[in-house]
């Protein structure tokens, strides 16, 4: 298990000292995280790292799960898509299934924490048990343009919480409760982000038969329409007219996603006559992702929509120049011309990539700025600090809190 002290060489002793200082103000408080799964997905990944670190800081923290059957999770998946703005046929029966499972969880889950921290919509109805303790609702989803029927259904519960937390300002709406902005984070000590020796990077490139003879443009993302892999290939082809380079599209997740499989086929078709395009369908392998990012000259993230887009933070942490779409949480990570280049179209992406390949000193400066921006704002230590301040805010309604 990773200990807090191991982050000192990365963020400095004073940042860790601050975490210990804040933690003392939470003495005696118990925090209870509740979500729907302990494995898979971003929420579980964050909690797996966050909970032990909070415990090491002396903040009493427990992580509990709700239960639900296949039907329940089918409904919550529909909710998820609807909150992302996709039209989904949600029936009266679906709402009944949600309410029925929620009631079972209300009966069974002991919400003992001084602070109950509920993640995402699946366990949202537990707030009906609220009795004198503090309740937080953490929304990890892009709800900038939600299906109103589902949002209004959830609002009945949201307003009972003390505060809500969103990942980007564009996800916020006018609410009768306090709402905070807390971005997700990456862990610099995880396999996906830790330093790698050059021989491992070389071995991964060799495994996938990627020669290191020309600049390499990379997008790491599952093969999904919203990640626009076809647009990435078009941008690469524009760049290729003027600069000899390679394109790597690497990601997973097509197998259990019918639409993903279609997109993957389209990508293969579009790439088939160019030996400098490398399409890698990867199983989950964080070291390989890390190596591909480190081997890249420019990293692109040309998403059409994005919850937060932590692949951008991963790239910037490796001091890579990034070209990324101005959507979701990406503009928080990339300030145009300061820590990367933002784009709105294929042509814009191609132009930005050409600029970076032709101006390596400028590209390096953007990458270095990006790394420091991530160090200050998007590492797990900042996330821990924000969560502890969030807990304290429940007991302090004022704007300037003297502790």
């Amino acid at each position, binding site marked *: 298990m990773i200990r807090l002290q191991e982050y000192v060489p990365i963020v400095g002793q004073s*940042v860790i000292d601050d975490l210990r*200082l804040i933690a003392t103000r939470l003495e005696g408080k118990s925090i209870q995280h509740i979500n729907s799964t302990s494995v898979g997905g971003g929420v579980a990944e964050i909690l797996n790292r966050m909970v032990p670190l909070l415990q090491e800081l002396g903040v009493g923290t427990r992580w509990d799960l709700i239960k639900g059957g296949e039907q329940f999770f089918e409904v919550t998946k529909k909710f998820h898509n609807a909150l992302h703005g996709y039209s989904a046929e949600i029936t009266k029966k679906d709402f009944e299934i949600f309410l029925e499972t929620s009631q079972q969880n209300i009966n069974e889950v002991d919400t003992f924490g001084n602070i109950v921290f509920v993640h995402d919509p699946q366990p949202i109805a537990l707030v009906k048990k609220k009795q004198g303790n503090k309740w937080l609702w953490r929304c990890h989803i892009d709800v900038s343009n939600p299906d109103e029927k589902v949002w209004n259904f959830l609002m009945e519960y949201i307003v009972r919480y003390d505060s809500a937390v969103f990942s980007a300002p*564009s996800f916020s709406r006018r609410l009768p409760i306090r709402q905070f*902005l807390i971005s997700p984070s990456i862990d610099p000590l995880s396999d996906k982000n830790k330093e790698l020796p050059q021989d491992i990077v070389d071995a991964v490139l060799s495994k996938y038969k990627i020669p290191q003879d020309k600049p390499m443009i990379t997008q790491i993302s599952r093969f999904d329409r919203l990640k626009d892999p076809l647009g990435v290939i078009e941008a690469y082809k524009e760049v290729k007219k003027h600069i000899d380079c390679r394109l790597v599209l690497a990601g997973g997740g097509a197998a259990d996603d019918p639409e993903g499989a279609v997109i993957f086929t389209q990508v293969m078709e579009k790439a088939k006559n160019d030996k400098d395009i490398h399409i890698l369908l990867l199983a989950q392998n964080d070291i390989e992702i890390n190596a591909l990012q480190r081997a890249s000259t420019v990293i692109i993230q040309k998403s059409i929509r994005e919850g937060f887009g932590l692949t951008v933070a991963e790239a910037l942490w490796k001091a890579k120049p990034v070209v990324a779409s101005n959507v979701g949480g990406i503009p928080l990570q990339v300030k145009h011309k*300061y820590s990367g280049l933002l784009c709105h179209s294929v042509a814009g992406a191609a132009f930005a990539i050409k600029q970076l390949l032709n101006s390596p000193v400028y590209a390096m400066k953007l990458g270095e700025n990006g790394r*420091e921006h991530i160090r200050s704002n998007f590492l797990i230590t900042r996330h821990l600090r924000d969560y502890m301040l969030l807990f304290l805010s429940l007991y302090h309604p004022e704007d*300037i809190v003297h*502790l």
Partner: protein
Amino acid sequence: MSHLLKAKEPFRFYTRLHLSELTGLRATTLVQLVKLIKEVPGSSIYHHTHRFLQQHQFFSPEPPNDFAYWVTEILGEKELGERLASIDIMQFSRIYDLREKIISVIEAYLKEERFAQLKFAREGEEFHFIKSVSFVIPTNYVVDNLADFVEIMKKITFDSIYFHIFEARLRLEKKTNDFSFWIEHSVGDKKLADELTDLDPYTRTLDDLRAAIINIIDKRLFNP
């Protein structure tokens, strides 16, 4: 060697950590922006004129405040962006006055440039008003002479420097920064205090600011 003498009162370093609170308010045009600037709490004006200093503390050159950035990059009003970016925040010791200045700059521009009010942000690029909630916590660092002060300056966090320089002066309305106040009133070195007061912290990164403060005090210690 007054600078090595014990100060009348010790100096305790504080740290200030902040949490961003969302207001749910958003603007898509300049007219909406100025209307909301008049309505939002002072902690929101403070947030949007100071956030970059902390979040982009290593960037050089440093980006301007949020209003200037949005007006320039999203609405394409570069001249107004420049006017907003060059507001001398050091002139103001109250958020109220800073807010009035921002309003007057935008309103004057709207009168001059009639077409500016027709510009609007695309969906997803609206200006979102956020406010800062500050948590002020005493650290364990306490000093009673300048030599120790400069040693601690080398290791405290940017949050701590930020608190004593920016937040104390403008948000807590102390009129000067905490370091100058202590050096003048407890150490009794007005000349040194004035030198620190004259530093413009808004045109430096926090890293540069730390180096400048240490440099000024070091010079005083070695060339009293």
